């Protein structure tokens, strides 16, 4: 009895696989998940997606990787602080004066000498995009980010060359020194006057 059961179940399996063998073996038709036919067409064709040639359509609002609009960034450092895995590395230089405005009208007072995001560490939680006051850090629907070197996954958003950064730093230091000197002079004057 057990033997007959073994053979009948084996035959059941074999007829199932032979049905798949002669099913439609053409390449998969690419439709979006919102398509009403989406789950039906998964049953008939193959499931292979020939990736670089065929791509699954992604939602417009897909959240796949981070992007920073540097012109809108006020270098407040909030994203770096909230990041659970510390993948954002920001180095700010104070400017001597207001250096412009973001698109929503906030005044920019800091230069970003460095704004690196290590996409290899990032866990795509999206916290940084929530805390950002000017909404300059967002998640985009670009999902293909394969690279040959691990270091290529560190995205550098700041485009400030080091010599410019050094110059700005020197300017700020000079201004601070001048302020200090002026303060000192004022204090001495005050003391002298008294």
């Amino acid at each position, binding site marked *: 009895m057990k*033997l007959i059961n073994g053979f009948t179940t*084996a035959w059941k*399996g*074999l007829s*199932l*696989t*032979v049905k*798949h*063998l*002669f*099913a439609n*073996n053409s*390449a998969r038709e690419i439709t979006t998940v919102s398509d009403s036919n989406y789950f039906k067409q998964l049953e008939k*064709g*193959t*499931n*292979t997606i*020939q990736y670089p040639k065929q791509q699954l359509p992604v939602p417009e609002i897909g959240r796949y990787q981070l992007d920073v609009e540097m012109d809108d960034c006020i270098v407040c450092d909030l994203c770096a602080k909230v990041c659970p895995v510390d993948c954002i590395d920001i180095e700010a230089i104070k400017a001597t004066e207001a250096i412009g405005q973001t698109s929503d009208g906030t005044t920019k007072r800091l230069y970003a000498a460095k704004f690196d995001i290590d996409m290899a560490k990032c866990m795509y939680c999206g916290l940084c995009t929530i805390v950002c006051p000017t909404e300059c850090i967002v998640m985009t629907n670009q999902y293909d980010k394969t690279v040959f070197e691990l270091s290529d996954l560190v995205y550098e958003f700041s485009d400030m060359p080091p010599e410019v950064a050094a110059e700005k730093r020197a300017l700020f230091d000079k201004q601070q020194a001048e302020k200090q000197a002026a303060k000192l002079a004022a204090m001495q004057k005050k003391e002298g006057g008294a």
Partner: protein
Amino acid sequence: MNYYITYFIVAIGLFSFSAFFALFGVYAERKISAFIQDRLGPTETGKFGSLQTLADIVKMIQKELIIPAAADKWLFMLAPAVIFIAVYMGFAALPWGPGLIPSKINLGIYYIFAIISIETLGILMAGWGSNNKYSILGAMRSAAQIISYEIPAGFAIISVVMIAQTLDLQAVAMQQGVLSAEKITFAGFWDVTKIGGLLSWNIFRAPHLIIAFVIYFIASLAESNRAPFDIPEAESELVAGFHTEFTGIRFALVFLAEYSMMFLVSMIGVILFLGAWNTPLPNMGPVHLADWTTNMWWGILWVTLKTLGLVAIQMWIRWTLPRFRVDQLMNLCWKVLTPLAFLCVLISGVWRVWLM
């Protein structure tokens, strides 16, 4: 002197055939497995990925031959050659068409059965020589499995031999078609000597041979270490079993032996049970289909088609059925197939004496 040249040509021809078959067998296996699993299989190298296995063999030839430090060097190096040559020598006694056989010996099936059992020795050498516990486990499993399954396979073959009354494969083939010198009866009562075709195949001459054929086919899967009897290589349990440590061309030889073995056991099945190189088309009244489609070239075509059909069934089974557990494997062999094969032998004796 000319004899020797012919021998070399035959040997080289058989080797090129088995290599060619292995290349396209692997390709077919990949495609069949892919289609069964709703995938596409290789698509990039050549049209529909047809050059994929060729690229693979080029890769394998380039690979370094590594001998593990603690391996038994000579056993390890000789094992793939022993495995392959054992299977390859089996090809010598297979008939391809009327009058076309590499080596016409009057105990062909006996010789083949003897020579392919040497493969077990090769597998044991590979497992022991690797000095790897997974390999030795795989080799022991393989030995246990092949030795066990040779018994039902052997008795299924004996039941055919009792019907055919000869060990010469060419004679067995000859009996199953219109070229037969003796009288053929369909199921013991209808004289089909002049009709031939499908009706004179061994499984229809004596219908109990259908059971013998199924027994032989199941046992042949075990002999060639194919799933569901692939416990010697069981990659999820034994890494890759007895060939874990082999690299490059040595691994290729083991692989070549597996595919050659698939073809060999299928072809023996075709010769013994499914009419060998005889046509499946019978003579019907004035339409002498069997006479028209029986000669050397048709013979090669028929035997190849039938054998490839069986190979396709082997692949289909491999990608459907799960691997047996060792106790289930032994159960099936000793408690089911062996008694059934004995029964077939018994019926064959009665059949030969009373009905033929």
